[in-house]
């Protein structure tokens, strides 16, 4: 009897601290599968963010660096420039990447850093207990917008893929979700393209995952997946985004 499905080598065989049903776990596994399939585990360096995925370094079987909040793209830049042969990816939440790290991600993308960014958008600050994120949907209640996000006060959610796709250094950008086995397969395909983009040295690559936070959304994991499909995917259209062609 042969094994059709199991734990990829690049994923450490340890329990995670993630809440039940949190899709951080699925995303971890997909990254590990892609690393295995590309056979780059031994030259991969991951960068974990400050966020629920802060301990990601314990969950992957490759070298890992913990970055300060939002600065993973700068840390990745330092690593990649110092060792161009390495396969470098960051794993960042929406608070980490789109809020405090907005400057670093814009510039890493603009410079066309040969790194792959895994952007986990769960529309909230998970680790700190459910505060508003730049990606929190209009009307969505969080601990720092208890009456629901008021766009007059806090503005509209930032669409990271759309924002970055205007930058010339960007070679590949896609937005995916993991709300069904079919979407998981699509997501993995995009992830693989992103890593291949880096291996081809053709520029900056980013995959945005619409992810869940059952704990802070106060939903069951199954409800949470449905909310991603019904609410988030409306505001954050899935698909591939490519950069604006060079002018002049």
């Amino acid at each position, binding site marked *: 009897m042969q094994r059709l499905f199991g734990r990829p080598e690049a994923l450490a065989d340890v329990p995670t*601290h*993630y*809440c*039940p049903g949190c899709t951080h776990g699925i995303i971890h596994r997909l990254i590990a599968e892609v690393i295995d399939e590309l056979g780059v585990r031994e030259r991969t360096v991951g960068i974990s963010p400050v966020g629920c995925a802060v301990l990601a370094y314990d969950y992957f079987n490759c070298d890992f660096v913990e970055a300060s909040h939002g600065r993973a793209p700068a840390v990745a830049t330092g690593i990649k420039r110092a060792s161009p042969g390495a396969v470098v990816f960051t794993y960042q939440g929406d608070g980490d990447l789109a809020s405090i790290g907005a400057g670093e991600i814009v510039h890493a993308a603009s410079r066309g850093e040969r790194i792959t960014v895994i952007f986990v958008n769960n529309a909230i600050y998970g*680790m700190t207990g459910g505060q508003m994120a730049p990606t929190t949907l209009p009307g969505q209640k969080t601990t720092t917008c208890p009456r629901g996000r008021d766009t007059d006060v806090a503005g509209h959610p930032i669409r990271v893929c759309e924002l970055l796709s205007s930058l010339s250094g960007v070679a590949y950008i896609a937005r995916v979700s993991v709300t069904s086995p079919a979407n998981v397969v699509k997501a993995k395909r995009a992830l693989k393209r992103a890593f291949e983009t880096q291996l081809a040295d053709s520029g900056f690559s980013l995959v945005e995952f619409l992810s869940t936070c059952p*704990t802070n959304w106060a939903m069951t994991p199954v409800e949470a997946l449905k909310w991603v499909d019904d609410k988030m995917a409306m505001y954050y259209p899935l698909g591939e985004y490519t950069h604006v062609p060079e002018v002049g």
Partner: protein
Amino acid sequence: MHEEAIFAGFGGQGVLLMGQLVTYAGMMEGENVTWMPSYGPEMRGGTANCGVVVSDEKIASPLVTEPTSVVAMNRPSLEKFQGMVRPGGLIVYNSSLINAGPARTDIRVLPVPANDIANELGDVRVANMVALGAYIGVTNVVNPETVLEAMKRVLPERRHGLIPLNRQALARGLELASGAKTG
């Protein structure tokens, strides 16, 4: 009088409220009190706990490292805290969810079928009040009436409707305790 208690369980079991009620009641009775919750990633996986100090003396640290009592509402909590209890101390545990009680023999142990009793009363959410009643019954750290007073202040208006039910649950716990004493 110097009591240092830990209340622990799943997030949904209202253990933080148990601690707050004791603290608030202690304050109303003129004692010095502190309440300290667990926070941050500690709370991942939905477990929560808080430490309460009620004392007639100024309170040094609100961190409860050697509790005189532990109230454990689920198994992980019992496992985590039973070792810390001071010799001669007390463990109240929710026997509805925990089949094997603590191993220790140097402390008092009171099993409370909190969920079962709460279900009898028609709402599993008052299991915490049952356990709280048992705890107060044994320790007499505060007067049950004061706890009910405290409830009025701690609970938001809209939830005051639940107070009668909570009173019943508390009473059932108190009975258990007195039974345990006499028996």
